[in-house]
């Protein structure tokens, strides 16, 4: 105690800070950094989960880059990203923008949008899967049938399967994005709009010149956040196409599902690790690029 008493105030603060940080740092090293490093090492090895690990150099990577399934999956992952992020953001913004102006039943409607976000992805995927079934089970096809329009083989078509799987994923994240957008909109002082009204600025100009630029921090956050989400899409795909994970001819298969398959169906741990390293690099690059592009000048 005598030693502690002799420290200056700032030294005491440092002692406390490191003391309190030690536990999370230890935890992170054990459950995050060590496995990450191990996975990177594993990607240069061959291992079937039971036997010993043997170094094989870049073999896993050469195998991966010459695997046509990998390129298909890689493309799928980016389609999820490029379709999912803009669609979900535009829809979420439109809802938030109009909901913000609505007073009647405001709370109820907001809760309705948020509900899917709180529901488990598995349950939701199964409900949507049921929606997509052919007549007489599926809601969508039943509706099309009453209009006299031809059936759409949503989950069984190489064209429609991916968007069909993406739709519930967008829907599930919508509530969260709407809430974040509304918080961003609320943070813009009302006088900005009043000043614009007095200056005779049109609604469209107010939106593009005032609202959107001022929402930029919110937009950057949501773009990065939802991009990571779509690049890591798994639950919806896995649960909506359980009998044939990855859809017809791998048409819905994302990278995470391929990793899962390689690791826990083929037990090729080294190969799976190489795929995770690729996914990690993609996530890192995409996030950094987005942050750089959208950073304030």
């Amino acid at each position, binding site marked *: 105690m005598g030693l502690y008493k002799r420290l200056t105030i700032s030294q005491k603060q440092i002692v406390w800070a490191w003391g309190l940080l030690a536990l999370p740092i230890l935890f992170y090293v054990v459950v995050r950094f060590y496995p990450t490093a191990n996975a990177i090492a594993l990607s240069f090895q061959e291992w079937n989960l039971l036997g010993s690990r043997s170094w094989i150099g870049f073999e896993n990577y050469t195998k991966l880059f010459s695997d046509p399934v990998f390129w298909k999956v890689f493309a799928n992952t980016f389609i999820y990203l490029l379709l999912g992020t803009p669609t979900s953001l535009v829809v979420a913004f439109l809802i938030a923008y109009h909901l913000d102006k609505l007073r009647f039943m405001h709370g109820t409607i907001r809760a309705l949008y948020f509900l899917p976000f709180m529901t488990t992805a598995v349950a939701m995927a199964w409900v949507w899967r049921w929606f997509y079934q052919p007549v007489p089970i599926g809601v969508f096809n039943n509706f099309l049938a009453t209009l006299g329009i031809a059936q759409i083989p949503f989950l069984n078509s190489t064209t429609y399967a991916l968007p069909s799987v993406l739709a519930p994923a967008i829907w599930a994240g919508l509530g969260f994005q709407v809430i974040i957008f509304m918080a961003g909109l609320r943070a813009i*002082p009302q*006088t900005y709009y009043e000043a614009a*009204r007095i200056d*005779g*600025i049109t609604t469209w100009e107010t939106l593009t010149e005032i609202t959107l630029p001022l929402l930029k921090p919110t937009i950057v956050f949501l773009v990065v956040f939802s991009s990571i989400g779509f690049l890591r899409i798994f639950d919806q795909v896995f649960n909506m196409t359980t009998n044939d994970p990855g859809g017809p001819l791998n048409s819905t298969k994302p990278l995470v599902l391929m990793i899962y398959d390689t690791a826990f169906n083929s037990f090729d741990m080294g190969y799976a690790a190489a795929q995770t390293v690729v996914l990690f690099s993609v996530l890192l690059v995409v996030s950094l690029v987005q942050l750089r592009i959208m950073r304030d000048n």
Partner: protein
Amino acid sequence: MTTVVLKNLVKAYGNTQVLHGIDLEIKSGEFVVLVGPSGCGKSTTLRMIAGLEEVTSGEIQIGGNLVNDLEPKDRDIAMVFQNYAIYPHMTVRKNIGFGLRTSKLSKTERDQRIDEVAAILELTNLLERKPNQLSGGQRQRVAMGRAMVRNPSAFLFDEPLSNLDAQLRTQMRLEIKKLHQRVGNTIIFVTHDQVEAMTMADRIVIMKDGVIQQVGTPLEVFYQPANTFVARFIGAPSMNMLNGEVGGEDLQLDNGTRMSVPLNKLSKGQKITVGLRPDDLLVKENEGLFSGKVSLVEPLGSDTLAYVDVNGTEVIAKASGRFPPAIGDRVNLHSAAENIHLFDSNTGEAIQ
């Protein structure tokens, strides 16, 4: 140049009426200040003139035209907000020019207008900066610039100086007044600060609870307050108010003191409130309306404010700055007859 006329203007939110029939005529080129405590309806009145709040009933005329149902942009007014409402993502030039977007001026004419306004407000060197690189006073000037650039027939100011520190506020007060003398547009200025109202206005409109209490020049509202509210609101420190009754030959105050004042126009037994400004109530050696015991002194340098206990009622009086009375001293308080204000205790109205 534009007149602004309000006729029996009423504003209600649901069943709650907040403005109870405002009548006001503002002359062309006049600087009118709406002043009152918060919740008195001054900002609501201004926002109705701007077109940001709907009119429940009554009329607003700007330049002789009924504008009740016109959009703000069609009223030929400009407004400066308390938080300035300048856009953080635009440069000063863009902020000032923002209001010109809807005008039919060419690009060169626009730039010329912006440069002119920037020169008047001494913002020329700051035109390419963003608002977060400006001080409070500079932001305030940008907000004024944005209003001026459109050359509106009337300026509306909604407590524009409230976010500035005391020194800057005094300086901006002067600048706005100079600006008015220079451009001569009609200005309607809202504030809760009676000093701002007194120093800037051609005419002051004092409001309370959605009703106009008095309209007059700064000197009129100071020297001839219409009622006890105006008397206490204008002037600092507030006017001393002493309740009493008209006796046979003099006033008998409720605290037992007797005070001789001219009693013409007063009837015996009438309940009266006597108003005495601390500035007019002087600590004297011998003569005095009444006397009391000093309970507290506040030295201000040139003067000293003495808090004097007059038979249980505390009044504030002015004493010498150099030779202030000591706490516990018994002093005489005197006021010239013309500085004594009399109000009817029941109605609060001034007795002229």
